[in-house]
């Protein structure tokens, strides 16, 4: 009995000792240095770059301690932190976060006052003008800027460069060129186009929206995003749906693509069983572990209608924004650290380290990896930039557009039924008083 008691005493006292030590540690940490917590989505580009930036910033600012953490489902962990009123100081919550809900709930601060102050390490000029204006526009609501872009992705089609060169094929620029080429590819026993069917978002941004813009001009898409009555069943949407349906009927989509997830379809592309695939500029880094050596992929914009009304140089982009929580404890420090991260030097480093485009002006002077050279050219030549904001603003509408697209590509519904479905979903969103409405006006950020 005595021995047992002794053992219990030892266990208990060591437990108390550990507790005391850890409490003590916490105390010294909070009282001494300024501490910054940065929570990041850990996607294809990792968080090592942000960690490295934090170490550099710490060296330049003695007394500052920056804790960068993240994982691939960080948004799920951030929700309870926001609810509890204990969010990090700076966050990049990733694509899974409902960004606008944070804005509606006042959980992130408007950044305009800081955007109008000088950028990192400068005394004149504004931080605002260092960003690509068309990307800053996407971060605004009711005239205020609540988020900030970092890297951005371009949406388009990729083609198998070696396959094209070997067969003397040219990337198609127009619809008629596309149809002619698909026929030739099919004759070779190769699937002309594959797509990530389980995630219809790829088909929406790779087929539907570009062809809506090609058929009806950018206004056709802007009106749809702004929920103008009838916009989702306009002739432009019907035309785009008919084009998708025609590719399906002619058998130009890879058989079974509707049952493939993104990696599955992308494997088909890099293994040469399909010639073209719609995907963003992240494709290369997403597949880098399985890419055959010397595999060359070319980037192109989705082919446009021969007699379309849209700007043929129009390009779709997407951002994954950063934000500063209202209840963060170190607002000024968070902003200054983000200013450091968005300085031109850091932006160029990010381009080179991660192989993606950056929202900072002038960062396109960096050394791009081979697969990004074409996208950069496309972006420089783009007179119109579009982004699927409705997916972020009106999540239910976005989901219905994707479901209807899956049904259209499977041949379950006609193009006419397709646009009716979209319009019904848009109407439901328009009439729902509980959904805050956005209006997108081009050129607002300039």
């Amino acid at each position, binding site marked *: 009995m005595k021995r047992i008691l002794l053992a219990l005493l030892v266990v208990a006292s060591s437990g108390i000792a550990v507790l005391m030590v850890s409490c003590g540690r916490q105390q010294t940490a909070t009282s001494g240095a300024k501490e910054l917590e940065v929570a990041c989505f850990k996607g294809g580009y990792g968080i090592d770059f942000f960690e490295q930036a934090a170490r550099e910033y710490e060296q330049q600012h003695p007394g500052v301690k920056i804790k960068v953490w993240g994982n691939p489902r960080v948004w799920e962990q951030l*929700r309870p932190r926001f609810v509890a009123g204990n969010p990090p100081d700076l966050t990049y919550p990733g694509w899974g976060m409902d960004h606008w*809900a*944070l804005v509606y709930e006042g959980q992130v601060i408007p950044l305009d006052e800081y955007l109008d102050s000088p950028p990192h390490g400068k005394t004149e000029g504004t931080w605002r003008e260092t960003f690509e204006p068309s990307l800053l526009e996407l971060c605004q609501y009711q005239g205020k800027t609540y988020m900030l872009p970092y890297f951005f992705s371009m949406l388009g089609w990729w083609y198998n460069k070696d396959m094209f060169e070997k067969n003397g094929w040219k990337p198609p620029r127009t619809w008629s060129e596309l149809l002619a080429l698909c026929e030739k590819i099919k004759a070779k026993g190769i699937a002309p186009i594959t797509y990530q069917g*389980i995630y*219809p978002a790829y088909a929406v941004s790779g087929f539907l929206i570009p062809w809506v813009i090609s058929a009806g001009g950018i206004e056709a898409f802007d009106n749809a995003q702004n929920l103008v009555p009838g916009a989702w069943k306009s002739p432009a949407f019907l035309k785009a749906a008919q084009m998708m349906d025609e590719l399906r009927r002619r058998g130009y989509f890879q*058989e*079974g693509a*509707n*049952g493939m997830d993104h990696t*599955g379809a992308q494997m088909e592309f890099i293994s040469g069983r399909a010639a073209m695939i719609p995907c963003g500029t992240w494709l290369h880094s997403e597949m880098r572990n399985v890419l055959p050596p010397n595999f060359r992929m070319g980037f192109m914009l989705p082919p446009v209608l021969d007699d379309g009304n849209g700007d043929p140089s129009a390009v779709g982009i997407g951002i994954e924004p950063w934000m500063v929580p209202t209840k963060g404890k170190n607002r000024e420090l968070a902003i200054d650290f983000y200013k450091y991260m968005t300085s031109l030097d850091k932006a160029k480093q990010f381009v080179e380290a991660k192989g993606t485009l950056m929202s900072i002006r002038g960062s396109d002077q960096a050394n791009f990896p081979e697969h990004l050279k074409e996208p950069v050219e496309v972006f420089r030549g783009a007179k119109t930039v579009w982004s699927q904001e409705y997916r972020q603003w009106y999540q239910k509408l976005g989901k219905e557009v994707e479901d209807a697209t899956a049904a259209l590509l499977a041949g379950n519904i006609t193009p006419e039924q397709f646009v009716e479905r979209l319009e019904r979903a848009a109407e439901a969103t328009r009439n729902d008083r509980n959904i805050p409405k956005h209006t997108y006006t081009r050129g607002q950020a300039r």
Partner: protein
Amino acid sequence: MTPRGRTGFITLFLLPATALYALFVVIPVVQAFAFSLYRWRGISANRSFIGLENFHHLFNDPLVWRALSHNLLLFIGTSAVILTVSLALAHALGAESALARFLRSVYLFPQVVSLVVVAILWMFILNPSFGILNATLKAVGLERWAIAWLGEKSTALASIGVAHVWHALGFYIMLFAAALRTIPPDVMEAATLDGVTGLARVRYVTLPMLWAVLRIALVYMAIGTMNIFSLVFLMTQGGPDRATEVMLTYLYEQAFKHSEFGYATALAVVNFVLVMALSGAILALFRHNPQEGRA
């Protein structure tokens, strides 16, 4: 020990477990009932009381009914398959052959594999391009049957059902194998002596004697299919065009994608009630053991 001291002693030992259970199960469930009466984005502490509006919306939401019908289809389909196959296999495993010994050591494998791995495994098997299923079909001349199993509205739900059965089977084989061992050998012997063998013996002796276990197994299957999530979420995302949407994937969508935490909580409450009701119905429906009826 006096009776009072005994009660105190028991209470003392029950207290920690009860406290933990209350903290992590009872209180959240009660809280869920409360949250379901609010409009809440689940991203700040702000929420507004809206009474039964979430439930009103829920009963008029065609997608809820569709999701629920998928859960019920999965329950009926998979439990029929699981019951037949696992009973047959449990029976066969009782035999003393090399094959039976081998099977006894492997049947639990799928059960110990994580559901994520199960989903990925089946996605590979069902892959339209390099999947082993379509490769086999093509090899035996059934090209027309080689389709995108997870991409077709008509086959996606059934494909998920197959993966679910594959994963769950081991558990039920174990359950029934254990139950079969509890049947006294003399009963079997007597039946054989009376000329009842083969399927007739299963029908008139084995099944009635397994009644209690069968009942519990059905309740487990109901809970398993009403709460199915990971397989669907990973294999189809509820698609194509909602053909595999189930209650919990719809709930997840409402909560995490649409920031409708109040509505999602109402869905959780309804799902909770439905699972309880279904389990209760199964227990009531199969209350009468035919064996007892005859006695």
